[in-house]
């Protein structure tokens, strides 16, 4: 009740009009809706029940079959389905011997005949008396100490022989060489984007040309009253003159020359240089077209 009043007071504060409306449920449902059950939910339960019943039935079937088999097993086992002649097993040995003899009569083999009789009577493989008791002693007696040590030495020698050789004092020097490698950082490859370099140097060369041209023009001017600025003088250069200069100095823009220039110490801080590790360098070389070097 406290909760109800609290909610009502809250509503009166926030929305007096709403609080004044009688709270009612205007939604209705079909008759017996909640009593008839829910089809989908029932379907799920039915499927699960059916599955459970099937499993139960399967187990029941297996149980029943087991019982039947158990009850009848004794009877089944006792039924002789394969029959043999009377006294078959008692006379089997005699019959085999007779058969052999009959065969020998057709293909005589004296040794076989003698052996045939003997083999059925005695064990033809015999050993001296106490053979096995004395066997270990006999073997040891044959193996002398000298022989044993020689054998052991041969084995040891064989194990020590290797086909791989090492430089002298290799293991003595190894720890230090490893330490040296750890301390020295790998030099990474520098990748130079020549296209950007080419463009930048082209601009720089053009500007240099203009400055040089301006200076040249100034030298030619003997008129002390020349008041034209360098920019004005550069502006007087024709397009053809500029193109001719670049064409005659094109060798300056070749890839190898650019690379040589950029490898100099002074050019270390150029923004287009990148330090790459081995993996990055491999990737770069495999995807070189992406970088549009026009090499």
């Amino acid at each position, binding site marked *: 009740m406290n909760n109800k009043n609290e909610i009502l007071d809250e509503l009166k504060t926030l929305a007096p009009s709403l609080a004044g409306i009688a709270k009612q449920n205007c939604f209705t449902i079909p008759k017996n809706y909640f009593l008839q059950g829910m089809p989908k*939910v029932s379907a799920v339960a039915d499927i699960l029940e059916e599955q459970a019943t099937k499993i139960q039935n399967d187990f029941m079937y297996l149980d029943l079959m087991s019982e039947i088999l158990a009850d009848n097993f004794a009877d089944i086992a006792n039924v002789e389905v394969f029959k043999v002649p009377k006294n078959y097993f008692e006379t089997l040995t005699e019959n085999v011997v007779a058969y052999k003899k009959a065969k020998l009569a057709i293909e005589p083999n004296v040794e076989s005949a003698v052996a045939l009789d003997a083999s059925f009577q005695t064990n033809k493989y015999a050993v001296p008396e106490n053979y096995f008791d004395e066997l270990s002693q006999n073997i040891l007696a044959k193996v002398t100490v000298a022989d044993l040590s020689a054998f052991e030495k041969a084995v040891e020698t064989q194990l020590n022989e290797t086909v791989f050789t090492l430089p002298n004092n290799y293991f003595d020097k190894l720890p230090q060489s490893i330490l040296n490698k750890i301390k020295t950082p790998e030099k990474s490859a520098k990748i130079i984007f020549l296209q950007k370099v080419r463009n930048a140097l082209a601009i720089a060369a053009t500007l240099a040309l203009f400055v040089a041209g301006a200076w040249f023009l100034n030298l030619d001017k003997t008129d002390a009253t020349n008041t034209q600025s360098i920019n004005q003088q550069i502006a007087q250069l024709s397009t053809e003159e500029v193109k001719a200069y670049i064409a005659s100095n094109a060798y300056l823009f070749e890839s190898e020359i650019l690379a040589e220039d950029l490898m100099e110490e002074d050019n270390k801080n150029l923004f287009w240089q990148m330090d790459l590790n081995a993996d990055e360098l491999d990737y770069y070389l495999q995807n070189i077209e992406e970088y549009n070097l026009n090499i």
Partner: protein
Amino acid sequence: MSKVTEEEIFAKWDAGDTKEEAFKLLVTAYQEKLYWHIRRMVHFHDDADDVVQNTFIKVWRNLDKFKRQSKLYTWLYRIATNESLTFLQKKKRKGTVAMETKDYDLSADLKADPYFDGNEIQLKLQQAIAILPEKQKAVFNLRYFEEMKYDEMSEVLDTSVGALKASYHHAVKKVEKFLKED
């Protein structure tokens, strides 16, 4: 729902061979509460019928995963709310008119609905609720119709009490304003 009944449901459920019996008990105990909560969200009986059944199917599949650290009905309400919101979002995508705008004439649809029995004021109220954003609608319904406490609502909607209070206040103000309009 009394604690004893929740324990009874879980006892039958945990036994294994009485799972179905436990589930039937659960559905019977909560179907009306969940149905009305869903119905107020989606308005129409056929839609509510679909959503409530989907809710219980979800409950059946996930009851083993319910950790029982909160009340069962809070968990059920959360599933029902999410299913309702999902349904409304799907309906919004399929529909030509956005339901949360005044362009959507819910009152016309409700008047034509055989399962709606309300006067003009109630129609207007339902229209006002229909144009609220979905989560605000859920907050309003839970507080106004079902008189749920904020801390329980917080578990249902997984939102802080402060945010819920703010949301309810905004919702009530909007409804009030709509009711005052001609």
